[in-house]
């Protein structure tokens, strides 16, 4: 059950509200890539791409792509004023040193402790972790944007992840089409419910207890 573009944009819009002026933010693929479209004009943010761009801008117009200027997914981007390029070691140095304020990414499962599982489905092909482990472990704040349930309708927010972990206890905030959860030391805290969903619907579709 994929989400329509309206719903994806609503999730991205809510995530954009987490971005504060001056932040360095790394975006994953999927819904996170929609986040920049929802940022107010008065917010100055440097988007970081782990292949070596700080200050990534919007996609170029068709015909104006530069094959040597792409994001980590291999798609053409532009840069904003004040941007810089660096090699991969420096780029990950920014992440490990705690200079990347926020990473916004997708996930297959998140546990009530904030364990993140977003890289392997057992029995399927093993793609490799890429830069996900370092981002999850070292970005100052980790925000997950995802469907509330999987294609079979099973909860993706669970007591314990059934899939191999990308990184344990790293997620700070989960935003789905149904609402917003904060991961706290006392487990999950449901902060917001999005219309048209009800508390009961969220409870039914969430695989663990949570506070409200």
């Amino acid at each position, binding site marked *: 059950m994929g989400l329509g573009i309206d719903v994806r944009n609503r999730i991205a819009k809510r995530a954009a509200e987490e971005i504060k002026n001056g932040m360095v933010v790394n975006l994953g693929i999927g819904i996170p890539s929609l986040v920049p479209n929802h940022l107010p004009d008065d917010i100055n943010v440097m988007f970081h*791409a*782990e*292949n*070596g*761009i700080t200050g990534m801008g919007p996609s170029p117009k068709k015909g104006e*792509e*530069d*094959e*040597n*200027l*792409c*994001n*980590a*997914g*291999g*798609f*053409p981007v532009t*840069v904003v004023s004040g941007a810089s*390029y*660096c*090699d*991969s*070691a420096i*780029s*990950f*140095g920014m*992440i*490990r040193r705690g200079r990347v304020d926020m990473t916004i990414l997708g996930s297959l499962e998140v546990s009530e402790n904030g364990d993140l599982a977003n890289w392997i489905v057992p029995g399927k*092909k*093993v*793609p*490799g*972790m*890429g*830069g996900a*482990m*370092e981002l999850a*472990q*070292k970005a100052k704040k980790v925000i997950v944007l995802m469907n509330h349930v999987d294609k079979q309708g099973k909860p993706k927010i669970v007591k314990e992840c059934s899939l*191999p*972990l990308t*990184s*344990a206890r790293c997620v700070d905030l989960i935003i789905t089409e149904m609402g917003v959860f904060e991961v706290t030391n006392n487990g999950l805290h449901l902060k917001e419910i999005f219309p048209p969903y009800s508390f009961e619907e969220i409870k039914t579709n969430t695989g663990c207890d949570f506070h409200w």
Partner: protein
Amino acid sequence: MENAFNKIITIEQAMENFHDGMTIIFGGFGGIGSPPTIIDGLLEKGVKELTLIGNDTGFPHIGIGKIVSEGRAVKIIASHIGSNPVAGQLMTDGKLEVEFSPQGILAERIRAGGVGLGAILSDIGMDNEMVAGGKQRMLVEGKEYLVETALTGDVSIIFAKKADPYGNLIYDKSARNTNPLVAMAGNITIAEVEEIVSLGNLKPDEITTPGVFVDYIVPSKGVNWTWAWE
């Protein structure tokens, strides 16, 4: 163009440095910044049983992916192979050994090899069997780390925007990626470049890779694959 350091060679001369069973470290990220002319040279020469070290396996018809898809590699050390389903299939079939390393740690392992260090200490993926399995652990000032060994290779192949005859290099935007690190890690480094300029035409301040790391310079015939976004 003057060739005072005898570093500027043809692609045919460059190919004399390659043989079956060797280890090649390659620059590039999703094919961007991988050297197209050298990769085609390797395909044409038919070298096989290669060990490849680099960020990823590109796409099936892009970058190092062209070599992987032809079954020329027996082992690859990379951070991901997801954009190249052929690599995944070869791995599943037991025809390609894959060692996964987290992206930034892989970059640092290549850098460590390139700057004459034996290993680095890392706290990435310590509770993950795929990353930490079989690796030595070390306690330093009360904190535990994994010992991540340095990587070197027989030949490094890289892609740059400009070189001078000494092999001083500058790169183009995000095509820099792993290239400056890979440039240092090979016993022999061959740089494929879009443009060769005279000595003195690159400002000393703007050079990213000093020519001391570069053994040979090959003029590029340019990217000849179709990008995924095209």
